[in-house]
């Protein structure tokens, strides 16, 4: 009963985040345009079809939208003096953070539907809709959890510091995750590194959904995404609980 009550309050936190941080024109435009520009930068002149581009485009859309704002929420709340108010309310830290994750998840999922719809209109045929849908949901939740983990340290109230440090993690992840080169075409050392990135598994699922070919097995892709989502969530809750007093001081 108590946990259910806390879960309900985490939805309240999520709705607050959407109102305050996500439902803004520039944030939404960034979520749509940025992955597209990044993809164009690496594909123009390489004679690739929309079908070839689809896994990378969807991977980047989901990854960048669901991690776009999440790392900045807690520093921003600390800066604008609303975090202390929030922490003194009867909401557990885990529920507070889960709310932030839900908000990133909803934003990432909704914005990513747009490039998906455009790709389908341009002739991309999603052969395994259930696999793709499950992968999309799991990956968005996984990246949303990662976004909260990225704001743990330093426990600052300067959003720009956290965003800069989170970019240092997010951009390299894109390059090692098979967005531009399929995992099977990578050298062994790169393949080992790619296996550490959650984005790799979603791109593998997206490629399977349109071509029927994947590097990892589908249960592996889904299982790793689930495991990493839980790992990011649990670790970020534990670390935030530890560092929250420092952020508030």
């Amino acid at each position, binding site marked *: 009963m108590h946990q259910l009550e806390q879960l309900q309050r985490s939805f309240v936190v999520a709705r607050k985040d959407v109102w305050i941080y996500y439902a803004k024109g520039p944030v939404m435009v960034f979520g749509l345009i940025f992955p597209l520009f990044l993809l164009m930068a690496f594909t123009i002149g390489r004679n690739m079809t929309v079908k070839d581009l689809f896994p990378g485009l969807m991977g980047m859309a989901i990854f960048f939208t669901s991690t776009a704002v999440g790392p900045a929420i807690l520093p921003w709340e600390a800066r604008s003096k609303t975090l*202390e108010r929030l922490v*003194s309310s009867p909401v*557990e830290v885990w529920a507070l953070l889960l709310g932030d994750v839900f908000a990133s998840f909803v934003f990432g999922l909704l914005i990513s539907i747009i490039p998906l719809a455009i790709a389908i209109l341009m002739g991309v045929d999603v052969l395994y809709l259930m696999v793709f849908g499950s992968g999309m949901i799991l990956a968005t939740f996984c990246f949303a959890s990662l976004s909260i983990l990225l704001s743990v340290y330093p426990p600052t109230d300067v959003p720009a510091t956290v965003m800069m440090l989170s970019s240092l993690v997010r951009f390299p992840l894109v390059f090692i995750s098979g967005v531009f080169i399929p995992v099977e075409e990578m050298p062994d050392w790169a393949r080992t590194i790619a296996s550490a990135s959650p984005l790799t598994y979603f791109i593998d699922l997206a490629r399977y959904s349109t071509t029927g070919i994947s590097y990892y097995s589908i249960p592996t892709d889904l299982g790793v995404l689930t495991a990493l989502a839980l790992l990011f969530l649990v670790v970020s809750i534990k670390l935030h609980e530890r560092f929250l007093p420092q952020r508030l001081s």
Partner: protein
Amino acid sequence: MEAIEVDNLTKRYGGSTAVDSISFKVEEGEIFGFLGPNGSGKSTTIRMLTGIIKPDGGTAVIMGHDIKKDAIRAKQAMGVVPEMSNAYVELSAWNNLMLMGELYGVPKRDREERAKELLKQFGLYDRKESPARGFSKGMKQRLILCMALINQPSVLVLDEPTSGLDVESSRLIKDVIRELNRAGTTVFLTTHNMEDASQLCERIAIINRGVIAAIDRPEGLKQAAAFQSIELSFNRTVFAEDLSNFSCVKEVKKMGDKFRLYVEDVDLTMDCIMDYARSHDLKIVALNTLAPSLEDIFVSLTHKNKPGED
């Protein structure tokens, strides 16, 4: 039942002890003031009581709920106005209240009725749809107080509620605190304003360097003071050093054309003043004996320019 029961509460930061085994009780329906200079451990204590930071030792129980073991129920019983607090400036006054109501699990109908009442009571109802961004400091503070009251708390914790506010907002907030207290709400507040503390609080605790220096009723603290003061003015200018030479005078402060003498024995000092006036052919224009103010007590207990020790 005690509304707040603090026993040996301790908080350490690195090698220093911010709050050192403090203990006190606040009765239900009481207005309790918690005073202390900057860095005395006042805000750290409030943060522990409100569950924002965890104590390193001791216990704090709010309406029967231990803040460490049963933090959510303890928080549920409280309304909190933290010192460093703000409303969500992007949201309207109404939406800020709805958000807080939902976080405290107040049913929709109740929170809407309560929000309407509170906004009217605090003079914000006409601006309920305006984003808090456009509110003055006084309006924001009133809104934050509304947010703290949306759950009809048994205990209201206020950290510097009138700090930096205009006279109108400050007076409104004090009136509401008294009104809430009459209705049975226990109020725990910190303030730097001794006048506010003296007017509002039934009992006061003074904390200094992490330990409680005194707990009593404001008048009790004044009576227990080992010094009184005399305010006097002569018809001509005299030197403060002359008055300092009186054996029973501990300290002399020049205040415009008047002097304030901090003394241990009023009767003896009066004799000295009379002798001095006669021997220097001076006329006494004004002479008042004054009980120590709460500010005097505070300064005395916190060892800042302690009267008589300079």
